[in-house]
């Protein structure tokens, strides 16, 4: 697709997301609904990733640029927020460490459980094969 058409597709999805949020009343922000819509279009093969790659790689490669202007509004927050920054900084760091620990441990626990179960199933299968093999051998003798 040519770039203007690619842009048109992406902006149409944005507008559809805003429509679903503001008019239909879906309780998710419009841009997040838009992401889900595009994911559905990709999974159902209606849009192929290559068809929108010009626009998608532009946005993805320079993602941080688009949240620079919203972040400048930090200038306008009151002194009550600014005085809390050391605390906020500490909390952000501490919470991140805890989140990594919990997310990782839980995933690992579930993977080990699944692998243990799959191993058991595999062993049971092998055992069943061997016994049936022995039985058939024994029968011949």
């Amino acid at each position, binding site marked *: 697709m040519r770039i203007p058409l690619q842009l048109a597709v992406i902006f149409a999805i944005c507008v559809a997301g805003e429509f679903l949020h503001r008019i239909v009343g879906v309780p998710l922000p419009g841009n997040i609904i838009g992401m889900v819509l595009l994911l559905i279009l990709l999974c159902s093969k209606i849009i192929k990733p290559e068809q929108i790659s010009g626009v998608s790689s532009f946005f993805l490669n320079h993602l941080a640029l688009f949240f620079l202007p919203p972040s400048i509004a930090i200038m306008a927050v009151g002194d009550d927020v600014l005085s809390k920054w050391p605390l906020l900084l500490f909390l952000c760091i501490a919470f991140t460490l805890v989140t990594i620990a919990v*997310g990782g441990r839980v*995933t690992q626990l579930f993977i080990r459980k699944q692998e243990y179960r799959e191993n058991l199933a595999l062993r049971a299968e092998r055992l069943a094969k061997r016994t049936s093999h022995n039985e058939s051998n024994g029968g011949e003798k």
Partner: protein
Amino acid sequence: MNAIINSPLFGILLSLVAFEIGVTISKKFKYSFLNPLLIANILIVGFLLTTGISLESYNVGGDYISVMLSPATVVLAVPLYRQISKLKQFWKPILAGIFAGSLTSLACVIVVSKLVGLSDTLMLSLLPKSITIPMGSVVSAQIGGIPPVTIIAITITGITGAVAAPAVCRFCRIKNKVAQGIAIGTASHALGTTRAMEIGEVQGAMSSLSIGVAGLFTAIVAPIIISLI
């Protein structure tokens, strides 16, 4: 001069120049805490404060760039789609890990904010701090937080993840590659993912899968939790 400062071109040019300086500095020194967004933010705020140019004048142009947050979020579906096939083998552990990590982040913010007596607005601003900025800033606005505070909190969170993730994994004996990737992506979004990609291919893929899933999960669950407390 005012005519130029109040034209959209001024804010756009200032953003582009500051961003490029930020990217150049962070590429040159390669320390995770020299984040291009943080550097550019400090440069622009410093410039506006020293010249006395108002935030409103900057935003005349800045708003043009901010509008692009919406399409930038939508295209996050592309990397998510590319990673989604990797869900197949371990989809239960992966979803369990992402949900547990996201809930931990939300619970930490709510419980500790109440304990140390943070205002509700600040608590709500911190709540989406583990998800990617285009999602987190709109979730923050939706639940009544202050989006710029959220953006800074998300950036600090991302830098922390990128710097500290390997040490945390070692300390907590998280040895499985899938688990490492999920932990990093769930806690510290795209910024942590850049580090996960350096650690290994599996970790990078799992981390980038977690960005979209954790963001979506948090966007759905955060408003529900808020309405319950």
